[in-house]
């Protein structure tokens, strides 16, 4: 077989699922219908913290069409374990979530009972009839006063010495708000017992194999007793596909009732039940020399875990020490992060977890330092970004904490690329001209690193059917990112076959022996390299034996990755502020990222743009506030404000390719990168627009009330307004 002249890797190949999805012919979990289906509805806690004295199910059981009502005593007394080994500190053990609340409810939305009925309406009606006897307790809501599960520290260098030598120190308290990933499709599951005693579960996403193994263990079954099937998934972004209580309750009910059970989450549930993310408070101080050299920083933070530690463990408090240093050559830093337990929805990960929050905190401080030194923020960054010749670069963090290693790239050079493409000098002039005309406009930049490509490994199997179809099997998850197209391109390239001949099977745990799934910008790197290795080995075997590919059997390969990889990114944002209303308008956003090598540049750009769009939402709109009783105030998409086409600016992308030697394909992660720098760049642009008033900016999102409060502040511009309104949304 001759190599086709057209190389599949590097090509903007069209996505494989698009024609189906655009026709409305996709199959999402709500579309899965089975014979004799029963419907589950979860009864959730209406209070943030209370003793659960009784669950009275009589009236619900008597309601028409009701099949069963279960509460904690009916289900195994188990806790949902932590998936990520390094997030599983012993301090988390006592805070894991039961399937249904036992004795105490700890957040509004916590599952307390489940009603199963013959149709969804009957289940929802009957759920209203389940009576909970609750004795209200004081909720923990204040991050600084809530119980601490653990404090996690990371240090590099001699911080005290660096601060002693500093000419300038800037300090701030900065908060990142509570958010959620909010995929457009909420969660759902259908579980059906088969005649062979096995159970099939549709609706899996992200981490099918871990969920299969863990669900089986929690239900006292062998993993082989479960088959998890991924159908089309309406977005993931970190939240969808983790193992939640419902993921165990629905299979449990299907087994107990001996019939298929379906559960489809509604949006109001999703906003209190699926993982929240991000909420953190930082106290940070940064030391620098008079000539603008960053020396050191100290950071103390309080990271909200919410009411339980979920499958991602204590990650929220572990990540500041990984991500606060970012792309600058610090002499020293000290980070101490407290994981605090509150009576709000548990916190997991959302696209670019930890790095987004840390980048906002660090990059705000860098801008404040620039103001202190009367330097252009861009110039201050130029003096401190790690240059290409210094990479690989390592922050040693002592004997107990793994070092941070930047294995490849050119941070300083990439930052210049962003500035060149965006036209920074022209932008500066235009901003100055517009200000002279009375407009409140600003430009902001931010630099950061994305952590991705997490191991430990991925397996792939490749064979060629007699009809010439190349079959790739791999345990990744398709969440809308196009991974099946990218893996097919990699296989086509290695085997020198036309892309159309390749099919990628990843949907069904019965077809794939193992898989770690899709998260942490890992699929193209870890699974992609496994596919490349397997396809290459198949081609070599066929060549060595003088056989056509079809006769060479199946080849398996594993790509192992002991450490995650970091890759550089930066963003530039321009905003205009309406000084009267406080409305911030994002006018332009440019994001640059080093992806190593782009397998499908068009899909990659789509990821970078989509992530940046979400980051602009984080900067300006999205927030999950709670009242003083712990009641969530954003329980619909009319409260939790996702950006629309009316708010988002044109987002431009600068794809940088410094291939890494760390894997055969040379690729780095890219799925989260657009997010990392976006809130920081937008916040810095707002800070720039507001001048002195912007220096007091301390919490996202930069909603109109917060902007008006900043403008009215002691150092704020006068708006000529004499109103005395209170600041909504400030707690």
């Amino acid at each position, binding site marked *: 077989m001759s190599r086709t002249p057209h190389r599949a890797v590097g090509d903007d190949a*069209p*996505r494989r*699922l*698009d*024609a*189906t*999805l*655009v*026709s*409305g*012919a*996709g*199959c*999402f979990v*709500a*579309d899965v219908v089975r014979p004799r289906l029963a419907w589950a509805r979860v009864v959730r806690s209406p209070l943030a913290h209370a003793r659960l004295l009784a669950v009275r199910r009589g009236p619900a059981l008597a309601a*028409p069409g009701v099949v069963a009502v279960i509460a904690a005593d009916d289900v195994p007394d188990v806790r949902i374990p932590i998936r990520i080994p390094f997030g599983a500190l012993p301090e988390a053990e006592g805070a894991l979530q039961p399937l249904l609340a036992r004795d105490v409810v700890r957040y509004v939305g916590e599952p307390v009972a489940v009603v199963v009925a013959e149709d969804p*309406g009957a289940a929802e009606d009957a759920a209203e009839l389940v009576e909970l006897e609750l004795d209200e307790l004081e909720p923990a809501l204040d991050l600084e006063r809530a119980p601490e599960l653990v404090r996690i520290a990371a240090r590099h260098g001699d911080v005290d010495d660096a601060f002693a030598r500093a000419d300038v120190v800037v300090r701030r308290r900065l908060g990142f708000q509570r958010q959620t990933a*909010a*995929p*457009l*499709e*909420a969660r759902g599951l259908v579980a059906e017992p088969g005649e062979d005693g096995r159970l099939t579960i549709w609706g899996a996403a992200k981490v099918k194999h871990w969920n299969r193994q863990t669900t089986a263990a929690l239900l006292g079954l062998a993993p082989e007793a479960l088959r998890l099937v991924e159908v*089309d*998934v*309406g*977005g*993931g*972004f970190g939240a969808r596909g983790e193992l939640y209580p419902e993921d165990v309750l629905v299979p449990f009910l299907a087994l107990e009732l001996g019939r298929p059970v379906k559960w489809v989450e*509604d*949006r*109001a549930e999703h906003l209190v039940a699926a993982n929240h993310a991000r909420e953190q408070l930082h106290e940070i101080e940064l030391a620098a020399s008079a000539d603008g050299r960053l020396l050191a920083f100290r950071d103390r933070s309080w990271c909200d875990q919410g009411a339980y530690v979920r499958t991602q463990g204590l990650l929220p408090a572990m990540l500041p020490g990984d991500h606060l240093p970012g792309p600058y050559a610090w002499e020293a830093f000290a980070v101490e992060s407290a994981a605090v337990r509150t009576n709000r929805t548990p916190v997991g990960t959302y696209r670019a977890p930890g790095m987004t929050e840390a980048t906002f905190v660090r990059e705000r401080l860098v801008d404040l330092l620039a103001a202190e030194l009367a330097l252009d923020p861009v110039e201050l960054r130029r003096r401190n970004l790690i240059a290409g010749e210094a990479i690989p670069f390592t922050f040693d963090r002592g004997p107990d904490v793994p070092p941070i290693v930047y294995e490849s790239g050119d941070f300083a050079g990439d930052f210049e690329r962003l500035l060149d493409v965006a036209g920074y000098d022209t932008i500066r002039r235009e901003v100055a001209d517009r200000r002279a005309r009375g407009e409140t406009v600003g430009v902001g930049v931010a630099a950061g690193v994305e952590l991705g490509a997490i191991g430990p490994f991925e397996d792939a199997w490749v064979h060629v059917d007699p009809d010439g179809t190349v079959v790739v099997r791999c345990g990744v998850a398709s*969440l*809308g*990112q*196009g991974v099946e197209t990218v893996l097919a391109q990699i296989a086509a390239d290695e085997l020198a076959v036309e892309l159309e001949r390749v099919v990628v099977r990843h949907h069904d745990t019965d077809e794939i022996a193992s898989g770690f799934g899709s998260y942490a910008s890992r699929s193209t790197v870890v699974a992609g390299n496994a596919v490349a290795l397997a396809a290459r080995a198949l081609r070599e075997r066929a060549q060595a034996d003088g056989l056509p590919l079809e006769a060479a059997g199946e080849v398996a390969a594993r790509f192992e990755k002991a450490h995650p990889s970091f890759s550089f990114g930066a963003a530039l944002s321009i905003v205009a502020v309406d000084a009267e209303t406080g409305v911030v308008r994002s006018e332009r956003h440019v994001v640059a990222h080093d992806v190593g090598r782009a397998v499908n540049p*068009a*899909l990659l750009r*789509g990821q970078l*743009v*989509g992530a*940046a*769009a*979400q980051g602009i939402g984080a900067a300006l709109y999205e927030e999950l506030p709670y009242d003083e009783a712990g009641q969530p105030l954003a329980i*619909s*998409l*009319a409260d939790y404000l*996702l950006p*629309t*086409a*009316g*708010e*988002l600016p*044109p*987002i431009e992308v600068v794809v940088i390719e410094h291939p890494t030697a760390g894997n055969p394909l040379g690729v780095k992660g890219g799925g989260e990168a657009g997010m990392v720098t976006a809130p920081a760049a937008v916040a810095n642009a707002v800070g720039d627009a507001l001048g002195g008033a912007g220096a007091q900016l301390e919490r996202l999102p930069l909603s109109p009330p917060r902007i008006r409060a900043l403008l009215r502040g002691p150092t704020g511009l006068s708006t000529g307004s004499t109103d005395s309104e209170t600041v909504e949304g400030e707690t």
Partner: protein
Amino acid sequence: MTEHASRWLAPDERAEVALVLNGENAVLEAEPRRTLADAVRATGLTGTHLGCEHGVCGACTVLLDDEPVRSCLVLAVQAAGRRVDTVERLAAGGTLHPVQEAFLRHRALQCGFCTPGFVVLAEWLARREPDASEERVGEVVSSSLCRCTGYAPILAAVRDALGRR
């Protein structure tokens, strides 16, 4: 006012809702509280997606007598005697509609969950206002939510669909 709309129904009574669904006469069985979205989906037309069920996201957009509506906010019984068109009508016969082709060309979807709503809306706009200005396209597209794309490719696809009609 047609006769069948003038009688009170008990809450659990099933109404027979006669309508024209994607150009064909059809009868939906639905109790009074059932939404049009649920009733349409129950016929197997699952391209109409429910992203919020409170009228914000627009994934469930269908045409009711040729006007876009959020089918999660319309009761099935309100569709009695009227014409309902869903995304499935656009690619009837297995050929993608030019609006759908434009969405593919511009890569205007990632997860694809919101896409049917946008496609229905875009086809309506292209037919109703073929000369819609850029601003009008932005206004219409901003009525629905997409979490994946950042909207620029959707806007480009809709503009393209308008230009090619």
